[in-house]
């Protein structure tokens, strides 16, 4: 595909009135429609294929491609029953929830409060300290594995979820503080000064003014962090050591290494992993995209 095909000839913008004009306009844009249609297919087919496969009987999966399903239309929920039941994905789902919720709420609370300090409390070295937080955003989690395990293991934090909560929290804070501070400083100064003059305590200003006005930013960060933790494999691999505590990601990676070609199980398992993020994405897309834009194109 060349650029010439992608962006076809001059298209002076005016609303087409006659049918002939409409047809001409559509024809002018045919290359765009073809390219975008192709892109749509390439981006949908792999996921649709897995979804279709997850509902096909095991014997069908081995015999014919998923794209031939439409000839037979034989579907079953057995794969889901098997993977949730005997493969223990119900437990793994619960573990993912237990890991994700605190690993979202704790950094959300701590980062909001720190961001408030960085934006509305004056203290020495504030800007230098904030630049340090900006720098810490880049530290890869791998850097902390060995010392954190040394720290967690003796006090039993690698059994259960304590270790993974703390690790996720610490590595979520720099981005959270950065994102929320940049939002908090845009709040109207007059409003905050007025509340202070009215005798509101620092915490009162935070709770009654800053937080309610910052719901979009806080929600965006919360959604990000939740999806990040929900989808994480690496932290779970290192810090969740008891098999019965494994989240979905780790359980599915394990299924894959045990039954590499049992597609009926893998397809259903992968979809169970995807359901919650997709639901979050579709219901909260607005916040999600806002957060994305705030986080990268500042």
């Amino acid at each position, binding site marked *: 595909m060349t650029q010439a095909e992608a962006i076809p000839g001059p298209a002076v*913008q005016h609303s087409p009135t006659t049918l002939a004009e409409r047809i001409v306009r559509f024809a002018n844009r045919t290359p765009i429609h073809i390219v975008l249609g192709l892109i749509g297919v390439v981006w949908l087919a792999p996921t649709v294929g897995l979804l279709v496969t997850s509902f096909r009987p095991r014997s069908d999966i081995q015999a014919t491609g998923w794209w031939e399903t439409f000839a037979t239309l034989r579907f079953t929920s057995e794969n889901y029953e098997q993977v949730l039941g005997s493969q223990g994905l119900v437990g793994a789902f619960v573990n993912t929830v237990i890991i994700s919720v605190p690993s979202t709420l704790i950094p959300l609370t701590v980062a909001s*409060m720190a961001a408030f300090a960085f934006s509305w409390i004056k203290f020495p070295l504030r800007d230098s300290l904030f630049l340090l937080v900006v720098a810490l955003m880049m530290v890869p989690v791998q850097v902390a594995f060995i010392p954190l395990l040394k720290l967690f293991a003796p006090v039993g934090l690698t059994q259960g979820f304590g270790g993974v909560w703390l690790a996720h929290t610490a590595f979520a804070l720099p981005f959270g503080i950065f994102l929320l501070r940049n939002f908090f400083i845009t709040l109207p100064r007059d409003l905050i000064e007025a509340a202070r003059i009215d005798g509101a305590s620092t*915490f009162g200003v935070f709770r009654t003014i800053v937080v309610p006005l910052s719901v979009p930013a806080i929600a965006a960060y919360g959604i990000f962090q939740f999806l990040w933790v929900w989808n994480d494999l690496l932290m779970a691999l290192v810090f969740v050591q008891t098999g019965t505590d494994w989240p979905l990601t780790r359980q599915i990676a394990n299924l894959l290494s045990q039954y590499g070609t049992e597609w009926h199980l893998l397809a259903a398992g992968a979809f169970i992993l995807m359901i919650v993020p997709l639901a979050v994405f579709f219901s909260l897309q607005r916040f999600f995209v806002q957060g994305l834009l705030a986080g990268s194109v500042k």
Partner: protein
Amino acid sequence: MGVAVPQPADPTAEGGDKPGGSVRASLLVFLGPAVLLLLVFLVYPTLYTIALAFDRGRRGEFTEFVGLRNFEQLLTQDPNFINFSTFPPSGALWNNVLWIVFYTSIVIFLGLIIAVMATRVRYESIIKTVVFLPMAIAATALAVIWIFVYAPSSKIGLLNAILGQFGVAPVSWLGDPGLVNASLIAVGVWGSVGFATVILSAAIKSISSEIIEAARVDGASEIHIFRRIIVPMVSLPISVLAITLIVNVIKLFDLIFVMTRGGPGTASRVIGFTMYQESFPGGQFGKGAAVAVIMLIILIPIMIFNVRRFRTESVT
């Protein structure tokens, strides 16, 4: 769930009326938890790992100072990490270079093309949503989706089924050391183009339509408008995007771990994978720490860039 979410102390205890002492109290309440968590679980571990990189590091402890030996071994004697004796070079670090070059440029190129094209059709939001969807999905799920697409059997794998229609024999996308990195990078691209599209689409929309109209009136072709107006005006978002993508590559782990475990052999390892592999299954903590430090060193210029960018922004 029975989770202890840290609650701020009783607000009445702050003494909001008295300026001097109250600032200290508020700082303790608002900044204290974050500073404590960052120091204990991020800053201290980073310093520990840097020190451990210069040690043999048995069981993750300081057992024997070895100076630069871990780095020397990784960079000169470990063909799985970096191997310059062949052309092109190979090894985990080299694979990261391949990822940075191809993944970053292809994601930005496709993102820009899709963003520009999508603005000209009525189903813009649909196409953007479709392309963006993989961003919400776990790398583990992306990996399963694509292992399936890449499956060697043409009854399972979509790609080999399509090739089969043209009489091409099934290709082992993930099993051939010469192909595996390209196959994995393609999955990475597929997963990230939506991100680039959303960022660049927002940037393009911020360009005033008057400028583009004026150029059109002056007889500029669409290609001219793309190259002379759109590209220069989105160059800042593109550089920010490139940095985000490069950071993604340095931290890359989940996709490689699930799809290939660094294989076949060690052909598709990346440094984020090597750090895990050497430390945990391998038990070579000194070496693992050295890999982590190399990751950090690669990220330091980006850290400086971000801090600088932020400084100039807060001045203006």
